[in-house]
């Protein structure tokens, strides 16, 4: 009896693992590792071909983005000029006259108000 049980156990241990379907990707694991991108950075034409877009449409979108960049440049330039001119600009003229002295009475009034 014991012998038969032992034999069955022994045979189950040696059982052939179930056959995986053809092409089963055994390297795949569920633990996420970063995937390395091996393809080069795609050109605009490549991106357009992925989406199946015409050259005309691609050009229209490029125009929008270019307009945005040029607009940004134009809005930035006056600030940049201002910044640049600030370094070279003559300092704002200061009134050379001394500030009027506050009389003792006025000072006392201000103190009492406070």
């Amino acid at each position, binding site marked *: 009896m014991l012998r038969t049980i032992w034999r069955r156990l022994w045979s189950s241990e040696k059982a052939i693992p179930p056959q995986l379907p053809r092409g089963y990707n055994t390297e795949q694991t569920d633990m996420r590792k970063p995937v390395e991108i091996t393809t080069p950075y795609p050109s605009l034409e490549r991106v357009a071909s*992925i989406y199946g877009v015409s050259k005309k449409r691609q050009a229209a979108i490029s125009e929008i983005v270019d307009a945005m960049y040029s607009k940004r440049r134009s809005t930035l330039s006056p600030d940049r000029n201002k910044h640049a001119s600030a370094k070279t600009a003559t300092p704002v003229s200061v009134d050379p006259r001394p500030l009027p002295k506050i009389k003792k009475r006025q000072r006392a009034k201000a103190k009492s108000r406070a």
Partner: protein
Amino acid sequence: VPKPRVEPDSVFLNVLYDLAFERLYLAYIAGLSTLGLAARATLEIPGGERRLDRVFTLLQSCTYSIHDLSRVQLNRTRPATPRFNMPMELGLAIAWSRLSHRKHSWFVFETEQGRALKSISDLNGTDLNIHGGTVAGVMRELCNAFVRRRGGQPNVPQMMRVYRKLRAAVPAIQRRTGADSLFESRMFIDLGLAAGKIVTSERRTES
């Protein structure tokens, strides 16, 4: 049935097309473009075929897939039901990655740690990408998911710059397409193109 051509730089983007998700949707498009990848979504495929067939065909044509499960919630309209499209498409991707001869890598993105594992316990043992529902979080997790040695690995500030530019270009693109929302076929493709153009311009100015 002819098998679709596999694009080595395409990413199947499985996200919710919802107004509340607009920022993250743009973040995915911008982030993937900065990494030199093209986002693909079921939005871009013309109708006619059965939706499930369209989804599977697109999934097969992509080398990678991103499944954002952060919006698997009950919707308020009666009868209150959860959105199961995204987990179902994740299941399709896992099956495809296991059974296909071609390599397909899938990633699960979530807002909260532990929520996806609570709702889909079969994912136990899988590392999820938790973005915390922020644009910067999405960029960070995209950087964790994809590594680029050729041409240099972009960093989060670079990705954020592309995102801001893409966001700035949205009104002009929307005006051109006449789209009501960003979740329209034409709009999605134009956003992908614009992101590609922005990345090219940025790379040119950096170099």
